[in-house]
């Protein structure tokens, strides 16, 4: 079988259920693939891993992938399982923030490590400085939980619809207590979990073929996960995911972001993301060739 190493962006959880399901259900085997799934973590940059040759394909967000491309690591998107963004900002309703206009002078929690771009894009659009002060917002590098809200260290914090949002609920906030700013709804979203490979490897036909089979099997896994969320969550827990209930709920939420679960990249979404990274000067020049439909097309045959 052909060996493929997949580097995830984060720890094992239902966010990546499709890949674990494809592995567990033998979809990869059907395509004659031997897939190794490497979980990520807070300080793992998948871009670095793939540049160092530690993976064949990675799950990454579009903005950091384009940034890496700008730095000479020629990453290219070959499929886009997540068609919608799961990023949100939540504020307690009894807090000072009621609308976007109230952000001025407030403290907002943000994740970094490549996850900060949508936020900066949004603030850019609102014309708010992120340097603090009465006319700007104070940015906190937030931990990956909802403590800042519990401890009232921030007025609003970042959450993923499928993960931290539910931690807030678990911590005792009710849905009606929370004000939600959804990046997708506000039109500030950037593409999230997509599959990326090194561009130069695509010149190898065998590799291309391997990737096409990988994408095909992975999307089959995603479809299965969408249809059988509880089973998918259990598979994730068996693979090392924490907290079964949490994973089940996460799977339900993730399913909402997959769209038709085809893994097709919407060029318009790509262009919007590309424009945002240029606007924010994350990259020095407008990205070119950040994606290819070749693999996806081959996979859908």
């Amino acid at each position, binding site marked *: 079988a052909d060996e493929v190493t997949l580097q995830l962006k984060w720890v094992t959880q239902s966010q990546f259920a499709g890949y674990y399901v494809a592995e567990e259900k033998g979809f990869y085997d059907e395509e004659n693939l031997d897939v190794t799934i490497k979980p990520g973590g807070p300080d793992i940059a998948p871009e*670095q891993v793939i540049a160092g040759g530690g993976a064949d394909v990675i799950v990454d967000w579009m903005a950091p992938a384009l*940034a890496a491309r700008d730095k000479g690591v020629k990453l290219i998107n070959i499929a886009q399982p997540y068609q919608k963004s799961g990023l949100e900002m939540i504020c307690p309703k009894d807090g000072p923030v009621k609308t976007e206009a109230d952000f001025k002078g407030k403290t907002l929690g943000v994740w970094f490590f*490549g996850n900060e771009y949508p936020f900066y894009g949004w603030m850019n659009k609102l014309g708010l400085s992120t340097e603090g002060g009465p006319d700007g917002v104070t940015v906190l*590098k937030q931990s990956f939980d909802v403590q800042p809200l519990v401890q009232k260290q921030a007025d609003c914090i970042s959450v993923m619809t499928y993960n931290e949002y539910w931690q807030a609920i678990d911590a005792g906030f009710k849905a009606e207590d929370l004000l939600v700013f959804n990046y997708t709804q506000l039109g500030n979203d950037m593409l999230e979990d997509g599959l990326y490979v090194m561009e130069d490897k695509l010149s190898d036909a065998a590799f291309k073929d391997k990737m096409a089979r990988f994408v095909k099997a992975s999307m089959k896994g995603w479809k299965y996960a969408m249809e059988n969320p509880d089973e998918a969550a259990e598979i994730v827990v068996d693979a090392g995911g924490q907290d079964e209930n949490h994973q089940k709920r996460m799977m339900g939420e993730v399913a909402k972001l997959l769209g038709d679960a085809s893994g097709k990249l919407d060029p318009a979404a790509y262009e919007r993301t590309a424009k945002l990274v240029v606007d924010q000067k994350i990259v020095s020049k407008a990205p070119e060739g950040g994606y290819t439909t070749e693999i996806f097309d081959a996979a859908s045959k």
Partner: protein
Amino acid sequence: MMRALSWQSLVAVLLLLAALFQLPLANVPIAMTAPAVAWTTLILVYGFLLAGIGADTFMRSRLWRGIVLFLCAHLATVFLFTLISDENGLARPGFYVVLAACWLLAWRCVEILSGLQPRSRAGRIILALIIPAIFGAWILIIWEAVTRGLGIPFILLPPPSAVFTKLIFSLSVIAADVNQTIFKAVLAGYLMGCASGFVAAILADRFPFMRRGLLPIGNLVSALPMIGIAPIMVMWFGFDWQSKAAVVVIMTFFPMLVNTVAGLAVTSTMERDLMRTYAAGYWQTLFKLRLPAAGPFVFNALKINSTLALIGAIVAEFFGTPVVGMGFRISTEVGRMNVDMVWAEIAVAAIIGSLFYGGVALVERAVTFWHPSFRNGKA
């Protein structure tokens, strides 16, 4: 006077001969048209190296031999690097062979300098600085040669020259980070942690019951992975420097406690009996005998803590910060693929850490000058 060729020189000669079979040393980029330049460089490199070997073999004065070797080895290295400076991944095996010859001569130079016994204080200080400096420089030179020569991807390991450039151009950002991490978190935490550890040690000393209860616990806690509490401290004390300082306080408290208590116990029975014969009180004995005697131990803790404090603060910043600070910068810039910035911060951290440590060591030398370890300064 001719003496036997030192083994470093001998091996260097052999390496230089071997390299002749490996020419050219580096692929010349197509853009660079004049091969004559490459040849001139090669001749210069060989010339300097052979001059160095000659000096090592024929010169009389140790000092001058050291100086000439130093110049020859490093000038040769500089010219060698011009061969691969245009582009990454140019070096061929011969390059490394010649580099190894340069390194051997530098080693020989260090050996000669180590053998010098300068009479003047200034001479000794200069020597004490220059020898490790050569060693450090060669770590950087080899690093540079490997990253550039092999064309290692920038985001895995940038060459030191790129790190240095980045450092120079980002001074204002780094200054803000240093201010946040070092001057707020580390300094405050260090002072509080050391002071409270010291006071706790004296309390433990005054009340034996407390000592017997606290010390086993202190010994235990000082072996614990205190890094694990960083996320908890962030949870409790918020995102700003206070939580980092709290981590530093906890990490520095126990080493200080344990060391000071040990230090307070070092006085000999006879020294303490002397105080008893004067019918001296507890505090008189403490201030006139036991604290001065504990000095070396207290400074030991201060030195250990100086590196612990830095590491603690930086790691704590991984778990949540305002958007400034060395730990913040390191973790976010990795995410942004600005690896040169990461290394620049690390370099600054190392320099500040070394200065911090060195400063404490100097104060130690001034305060505990009487301790035998400073007296018989046997090299």
